[in-house]
């Protein structure tokens, strides 16, 4: 069932046109990987889908036109994780996660309703960060901080999660952990869109892959189809070693040095 769709989406940054006529339709309960070379427009597409930047064309979310939804309502439907897990002030992790309840009217972490506290705790337990609830985010390691950022996004309990490179700058173990957590969330019926440069992770965890190239959708579909030899060669200018390990698809990007 389609939860989020876009028709004829165009967007510009300044005078440069970044997205050209993108149409897509994404289903609830799917983990969608958004891949493409640097500068292909992945982040712009994610922002446009969340309504964070102006775009032309139509975006529909759960039957409603995004353009007609007020800001507060959009915030309840999209949980957005920006690149870099930025936190500007050294607040305790619990306060950061509690900000996920902001769209629901809980703007003060010291005065959460029972319902909000439960949502925050559920989110913290899902990514296993309750142990450092009272520690400042600035004192955490990169892996721990990325999990706190993820918990903040989960605490929104939105039907759509848009995550921009949630695995960037994490070690292999943490990358797999984060993708597995997002996979688990998708399995509960949430639509999760993940921007990633790691084609291996995309092939292993995603239901669908969207390949973006110079602002256009070059391919979309199941990982096997969307990440075909032809797409690899045309879009990424690489080939790939393909195998299966423990019954999961493995892709190792390869280019002659």
């Amino acid at each position, binding site marked *: 069932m389609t939860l989020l769709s876009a028709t004829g989406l165009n967007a510009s940054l300044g005078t440069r046109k970044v997205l050209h006529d993108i149409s897509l339709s994404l289903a609830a309960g799917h983990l969608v990987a958004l891949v493409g070379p640097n500068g292909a427009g992945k982040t712009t597409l994610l922002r446009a889908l969340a309504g964070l930047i102006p775009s032309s064309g139509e975006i529909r979310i759960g039957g409603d036109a995004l353009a007609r939804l007020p800001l507060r309502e959009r915030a309840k439907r999209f*949980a957005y994780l920006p690149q870099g897990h930025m936190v*500007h002030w*050294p607040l305790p992790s619990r306060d*950061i996660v509690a900000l*996920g309840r902001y769209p629901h009217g809980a703007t*003060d972490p010291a005065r959460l309703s029972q319902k909000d506290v*439960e949502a925050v705790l559920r989110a913290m337990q899902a990514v296993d960060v309750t142990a450092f609830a009272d520690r400042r985010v600035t004192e955490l390691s990169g892996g721990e901080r990325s999990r706190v950022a993820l918990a903040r996004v989960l605490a929104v309990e939105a039907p759509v999660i848009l995550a921009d490179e949630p695995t960037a700058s994490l070690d292999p173990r943490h990358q797999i952990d984060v993708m597995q957590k997002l996979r688990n969330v998708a399995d509960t019926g949430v639509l999760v869109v993940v921007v990633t440069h790691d084609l291996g992770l995309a092939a292993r965890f995603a239901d669908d892959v969207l390949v973006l190239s110079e602002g256009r959708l070059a391919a979309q579909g199941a990982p096997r189809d969307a990440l075909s030899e032809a797409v690899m060669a045309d879009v990424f200018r690489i080939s790939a070693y393909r195998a299966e390990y423990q019954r999961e698809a493995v892709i190792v990007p390869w280019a002659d040095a």
Partner: protein
Amino acid sequence: MSVQDFALASEVAARRRWGATAALAALAVLLALISLGIGPVRLSPLAVTEALFGGGSDVAQVIVREIRLPRTILAFAIGGILGLSGAALQGLLRNPLASPSLFGAPQSAAFGAVLVISLGLADVRSYALPVVAIVAAFGSVFALLAIAGRNAGLLILILAGLAISSFAGAATALVMNLSSNPFVVLEIAFWLLGSLEDRSFQHVALALPFIVAGAVILLSQASAFRALTLGEEAAQSLGVDIGRLRLLVITGVALGVGGAVAVTGTIGFIGLVAPHLMRPVIGHDPARLLVPSALAGSALLLAADIAVRIIPSTSDIKVGVLTSIIGVPFFLYLIMRERRALGGGVA
């Protein structure tokens, strides 16, 4: 961790913050009473309280209620709005070095006021003065944020602030330069130094409405500053209208700073110092810092205004001079602490 544990931990932290805020409020009130007692006739805080509520001698009543009360009210309100403006700008820009005076807001407001005075456009006690000062302050903060753009780094903000305050200073100098009346020039020069001396209830009526309006606007945006901890994009995705927020903060700061400058001249660095003094006590949450920073600003300006009256000197020291003398070394210390971020290049 259970729901109860979670709630309990929040409550403990909240109680500590409330305690600190209450203590600060008590300090500000005490300083206000001392301020009312200082002058050619010294009165104890007890005598001051008595006179305030209509007791004591007639002379004491006149001294406290009519001569000194306006000065104390202005010190309290202006210190408060400067502290609040600093905390709000730091929250908006996620930057501990943001403050009205570093961004040239008081200097620009002063330029507006000086222009009105020297051109003889309006009487010094008319509402034209604060209104022009507010418009000038609004223009300067607006220009700064427009130049700095979204997600501005420290370096850009400080360079742009330097340029704007230098420009406002130069424009003020030009006005004085072109003025044909040397007495007006001298008066403006002293007024620019920033002082609370000999202020009447007329001055209070001139400044207070704008200061209160500015404070209400800034305080109403508290939770948006907290959401901004995650950056502009994430805050926007949580439902914060960033464009509207910026405009409201600029308006609030301009109303407060413009209103304050119109009656006292430029008093710098309180907006920078107050939030910093509060962070170790209250924590870094920009929403919770607003009220304590305002109280700390009040306490700082009241203390500075007491100090200029008891420091022995042949001519009286202006309070704006004192706050800058204390504020600039503090600013240098902050730059040293932020050296790594500043050295990080043009962000």
